[in-house]
């Protein structure tokens, strides 16, 4: 049987809006075997609780999203990483947090657990005192003449999050980049357990500060799905307003920062000016520059106070954007740094199911606002920009194009705000739900299970899980000095994957 058929043949357990297919360990093993030769079914997310391992798949053949789980048997389950390499970081995280062993996995080195915690498998009901020593991490070997290693981080040279980059280089050319993360692990998933969705929303809003709105929306939608309630229409529209403001503000910051890493100071000055204007407008409209905690399960925390400053900031951006793109095109020394640098091959983007500008700059046409869609985007027509080149230049241009689309969406959203309540109360329900939102980086998926109105288990999948590995691949054959530029063009979240 092909992978999608194995998944669909399994009996289902209730989860809203996608039922969860419960696989036996044998069916799971058959699925892993079937995935080896399958190119249609992509892995979007993988997580665990104390009993089971869960996966979210996307069947590109017919566009279905399929949720699956397998019981952990005697502390182990069959590893998915030989068939889906993106599963490796998930498997290592699941082992460090819950102690479940991925049998036959491609990599059994620790990931989040650096040997500094008091407990081993802290989220497992059988957590034991940690015996792991904080030894220097082991990195993957490289063979060849005249290779040397460059160790960078966790504390970096810029104003940026911590992570370790291990370059193996031959002269200037990068042979291998290996990324080691986990430095920002805050135990967020553990802190959310036992709390009501309302109380836990503060953690979703702080998983990755730059995506605070998108993560808050995905979390709120998961909680609402589990409780079988829907946020009121005005709240849904206001959420979209905030999400598009967040997208434009981040793209402005990124476009400036990419140009800055190519030492072209004019563009970051102008992009930064517009970003500030937009953050100021967000403050005027919602009372917080990043709109943190403005989206809550059941609706939104407050109404829009003023949309005049949003519209004038958007008009200024729209007015200057074509000119800024002309400047970018006119300076050959700038374009020379961007074009052909840090190229991600389309087959890798599909294999890792990378979303957002990383995927869309390499030809992967995927946007949650369109499929599986959600309100209010479901009823709106809009473009999803797509490029094929997959280099720094393409990721820059995708962002610029997406800003134009978002500005148009924002105008339509603001013009069509319905009247009505801002929240609905969440009942003290038990149930399972999955929620999603398209953040500025790409697709965000949040799954949770409620038990008597309290969170029993939760996982928030930041887009960066599937993008970081591609940064490693994109660096091969590039020069070390171009790493900051490539890294900025990806702008993956560290905190978002460190949990």
């Amino acid at each position, binding site marked *: 049987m092909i992978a999608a058929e194995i998944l669909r043949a399994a009996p289902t357990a209730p989860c809203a809006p996608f039922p969860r297919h419960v696989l036996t360990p044998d069916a799971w093993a058959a699925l892993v075997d079937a995935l080896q030769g399958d190119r249609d079914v992509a892995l979007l997310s993988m997580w665990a609780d104390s009993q089971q391992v869960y996966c979210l798949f996307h069947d590109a053949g017919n566009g279905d999203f399929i949720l699956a789980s397998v019981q952990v048997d005697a502390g182990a389950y069959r590893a998915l990483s030989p068939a889906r390499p993106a599963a490796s970081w998930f498997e290592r995280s699941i082992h460090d947090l819950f102690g479940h062993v991925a049998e036959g996995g491609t990599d059994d080195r620790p990931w989040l657990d650096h040997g500094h915690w008091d407990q081993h498998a802290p989220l497992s009901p059988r957590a034991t005192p940690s015996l792991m020593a904080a030894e220097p991490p082991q990195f993957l070997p490289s063979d060849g003449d005249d290779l040397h290693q460059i160790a960078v981080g*966790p504390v970096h040279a810029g*104003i940026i999050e911590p992570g370790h980059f291990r370059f193996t280089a031959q002269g200037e050319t990068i042979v291998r980049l290996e990324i080691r993360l*986990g430095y920002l692990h805050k135990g967020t998933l553990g802190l959310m357990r036992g709390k009501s969705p309302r109380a836990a929303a503060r953690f979703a809003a702080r998983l990755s500060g*730059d995506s605070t709105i998108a993560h808050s929306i995905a979390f709120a939608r998961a909680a609402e799905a589990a409780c079988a309630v829907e946020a009121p229409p005005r709240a849904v529209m206001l959420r979209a307003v905030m999400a598009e403001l967040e997208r434009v503000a981040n793209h402005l910051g990124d476009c400036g920062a990419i140009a800055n890493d190519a030492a072209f100071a004019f563009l970051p000055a*102008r992009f*930064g000016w517009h970003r500030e204007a937009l953050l100021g407008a967000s403050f005027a409209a919602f009372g917080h520059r990043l709109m943190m905690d403005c989206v809550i399960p059941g609706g939104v925390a407050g109404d829009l106070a003023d949309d005049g400053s949003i519209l004038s900031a958007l008009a200024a951006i729209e007015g200057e954007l074509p000119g800024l793109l002309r*400047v970018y095109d006119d300076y050959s020394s700038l374009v020379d740094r961007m074009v052909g640098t840090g190229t991600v091959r389309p087959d890798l983007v599909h294999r890792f199911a990378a979303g957002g500008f990383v995927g869309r700059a390499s030809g992967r046409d995927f946007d949650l606002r369109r499929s599986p869609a959600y309100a209010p985007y479901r009823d709106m027509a809009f473009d999803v920009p797509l490029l094929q080149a997959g280099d720094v230049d393409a990721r820059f241009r995708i962002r610029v194009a997406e800003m134009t689309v978002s500005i148009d969406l924002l105008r339509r959203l603001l013009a069509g705000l319905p009247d009505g309540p801002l929240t609905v109360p969440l009942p003290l329900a038990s149930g399972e739900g999955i929620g999603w939102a398209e953040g500025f980086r790409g697709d965000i998926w949040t799954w949770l299970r409620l038990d008597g109105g309290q969170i029993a288990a939760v996982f928030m999948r930041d887009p960066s899980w599937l993008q970081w590995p591609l940064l490693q691949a994109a660096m091969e054959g590039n020069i070390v000095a171009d790493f900051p530029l490539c890294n900025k063009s990806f702008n993956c979240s560290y*905190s978002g994957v460190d949990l």
Partner: protein
Amino acid sequence: MVWRTIARTLRHRPLTVPPDAISDAATQDLADRLAAVSKRRLGRSLAIRQVDAGSCNGCELEINMLNGIVYDLERFGLRFVASPRHADVLLVTGPITRNMQDALRRTYDATPDPKFVVAVGDCAVDGGVFKGSYAIHGGVDSTVPVDLVVRGCPPTPAQLLEGLRLLVEANAT
């Protein structure tokens, strides 16, 4: 486009926001506290090394805005440097995760004396919402001594600027 924009900027007032007045009392208070630490004057110029020791990156977003044309940190003699060995000030964000504690301590040790530590954001005070997690050690002062706290979740660039200018003024007093 570039030249036209530059020419246009000659005709209107700068886009950078004018600085607010700084409280004399707060300056004096901080100056008194720093006098014991500061063996020699660093003058009116401080080099800052930012260290994210557990933040959600919200604080970094706002710290980054200080480098832009609106807040223009450098006009006050403050600038971000790439190495702790070049720094007078460590600007530390986040609840201190157990996985970053070593790195923060080593960054602090690599910074030459006299040095100041500014804890940025509510999490940096005592761990904030992450307080009590198995993966969190505590606030910044659980690992390195703190001279100044800038609260907020995240603090706005204006609040960050106020805190850093306070440090310059107190240091030069």
